[in-house]
């Protein structure tokens, strides 16, 4: 019998005997995508700035530089000599320190918000899809109802009624963003559920819970990862919009949206740097996430193989 397998042509059955997993394949494809790799490097740099940026700051983010406060438009611009690399904001605080602080907050909102959304959306969607039938119907109609509510309106109302707080912002954004995730995951689960390997596992007597964790979720990981990277900029955008409206994070805390809002309102006095630096970080980050998401989609999409 064994001779028949050896005789089967077309397969490199020699070699190290170490197989290439789909993840390794995907990593190879991802690394061939130049835009995605550059975006990933830039993204890592921005994250490093958020973490280690304060070490290089000459000024604290709460200190007011009284020397430049009198005439910010002419003296508060970016300069190496006085330590204000990005200039100062309209209250004379170091803009570099403020941008680093805003980066920390915005990235945290983006990453934590999308983690909440992905975790909850995946569990909800996979359950609905795998159980199916009436349970599925009730769960997904609930999602439809929640989706039909204009969430930005509700979020603004919540922030106005209960007062502005980071905590409420997280909850508010997290509560609405898992909806789309659960829909995507449910659809994929429906497709995976009817695969023969799931049937094979059932026929062997594997328990349903194990089937979901061993056979369904690992095969969903590709789409979850892609969606998560696309969700992060969406979170950052939502938070920035809320902060732009003045309902987001509160002073002395800040975020990209809040900084952009302040910079835009003082643009008429000629302090262009107050808008340009936070805006540059914001745009570069969004682009990076979109390119990374795009690269991941190309790398993980099985149809591409």
């Amino acid at each position, binding site marked *: 019998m064994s001779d028949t397998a050896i005789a089967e042509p077309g397969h490199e059955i020699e070699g190290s005997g170490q197989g*290439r997993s*789909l993840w390794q394949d995907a990593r190879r494809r991802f690394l061939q995508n130049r835009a995605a790799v550059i975006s990933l490097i830039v993204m890592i740099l921005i994250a490093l700035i958020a973490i280690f940026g304060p070490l290089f700051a000459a000024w604290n983010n709460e200190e007011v530089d009284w020397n430049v406060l009198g005439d910010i438009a002419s003296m508060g611009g970016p300069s190496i000599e006085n330590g204000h690399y990005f200039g100062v904001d309209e209250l004379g605080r170091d803009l570099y320190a403020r941008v680093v602080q805003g980066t920390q907050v915005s990235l945290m909102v983006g990453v934590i918000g999308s983690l909440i959304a992905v975790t909850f959306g995946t569990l909800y969607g996979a359950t609905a899809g795998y159980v199916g039938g009436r349970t599925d119907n009730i769960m997904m109609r609930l999602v439809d109802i929640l989706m039909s509510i204009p969430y930005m309106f509700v979020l603004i109302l919540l922030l106005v009624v209960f007062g502005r707080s980071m905590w409420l912002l997280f909850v508010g954004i997290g509560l609405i963003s898992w909806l789309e995730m659960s829909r995507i995951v449910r659809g994929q689960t429906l497709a995976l559920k009817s695969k023969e390997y799931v049937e094979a596992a059932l026929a062997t007597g594997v*328990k349903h819970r194990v089937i979901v964790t061993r056979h369904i979720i690992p095969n969903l990981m590709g789409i979850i990862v892609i969606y998560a990277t696309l969700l992060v900029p969406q979170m950052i955008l939502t938070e920035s919009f809320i902060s732009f409206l003045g309902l987001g994070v509160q002073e002395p805390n800040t975020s990209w949206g809040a900084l952009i809002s302040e910079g835009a309102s003082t643009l008429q006095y000629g302090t262009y740097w107050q808008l340009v630096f936070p805006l540059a970080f914001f745009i570069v980050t969004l682009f990076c996430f979109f390119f990374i998401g795009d690269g991941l989609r190309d790398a993980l999409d099985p149809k591409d193989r």
Partner: protein
Amino acid sequence: MTTPETVLSVNDVKVYFKFGTTGLFGKREQRYVKAVDGISFDIKRGETLGIVGESGCGKSTLARAVIRMVPAHAGRVLWMGEDLLELDGEAMRDKRKDLQMIFQDPLASLNPRMTLGQIIAEPLKTHFPQMPKSEMREKVAAMMKRVGLLPNMINRYPHEFSGGQCQRIGIARALILEPKLIICDEPVSALDVSIQAQVINLLMDLQKEMNLSLMFIAHDLSVVKHISTRVMVLYLGNVVEIADSDDIYANPSHPYTRALIAAVPDLDKAAPADRASLMVDGELPSPLSPPSGCPFRTRCPLVQDICVSEKPPLTETASGHSVACYFPTASPH
């Protein structure tokens, strides 16, 4: 010679699928697709029962009903004297050790994110969670060798294998628990002919060695003839003929069986002169509204009045040869 014991006895199993379910407000008319409409058969130890029939006749549904992958509407499935349809979840899970299945699409039946070793070990992990890792690895390696897979393939992933190799993996997974019955749902239809022969011969070798019973579903009659001890012909969820393999090919009694056998292309022999007259036209009737009386009457060349009014019972015409037809072709013996 002692007759081997019967391991599986299927008794009047019916699988109906609900159709036209409840609407938004109240109930609509309930209709049923009769996928399997009262089928009975036995399988003895070490025996292979071939199941043939055209697409949509209920072959796969019947197989899945036996191992409770689809719910049976009525009937009994006696496995070593115990009714599988009445077992609760935990007891049924335990029985699945003895009843394994091999699937049609070799690649689709393997999880793309698991290595070959993990796939073959999964049944062991499920039923013997306490088994030490080393013993599990030994068993997997032995089984891989047995089905003709090289030991260095153990860490590879399914997409790195050809269809024939994937089916060997599927067979290894089905055999690792040393089951007593294997249900093969068109295991070679997706493979090309030279690989088909290898897989079939592997199955037959393993069957002899482990004294397995096989329930072998196929639509390729020559494959079925090669592997089966007995052959059962299905039409529209009903058994039309069941007999020993040699007997049914030599003396097909039901007009449908004769049409099926006549339709097998043969390079060596010229087509029989009456081939055209044996062929049947038309489509399989919808199982939603099956014909009255004999299910085959809409396409049967021998149809009479009685076929319309009454369903022919499955009757034994010769020893071990049963036909559901009022006008079976007489067997010469």
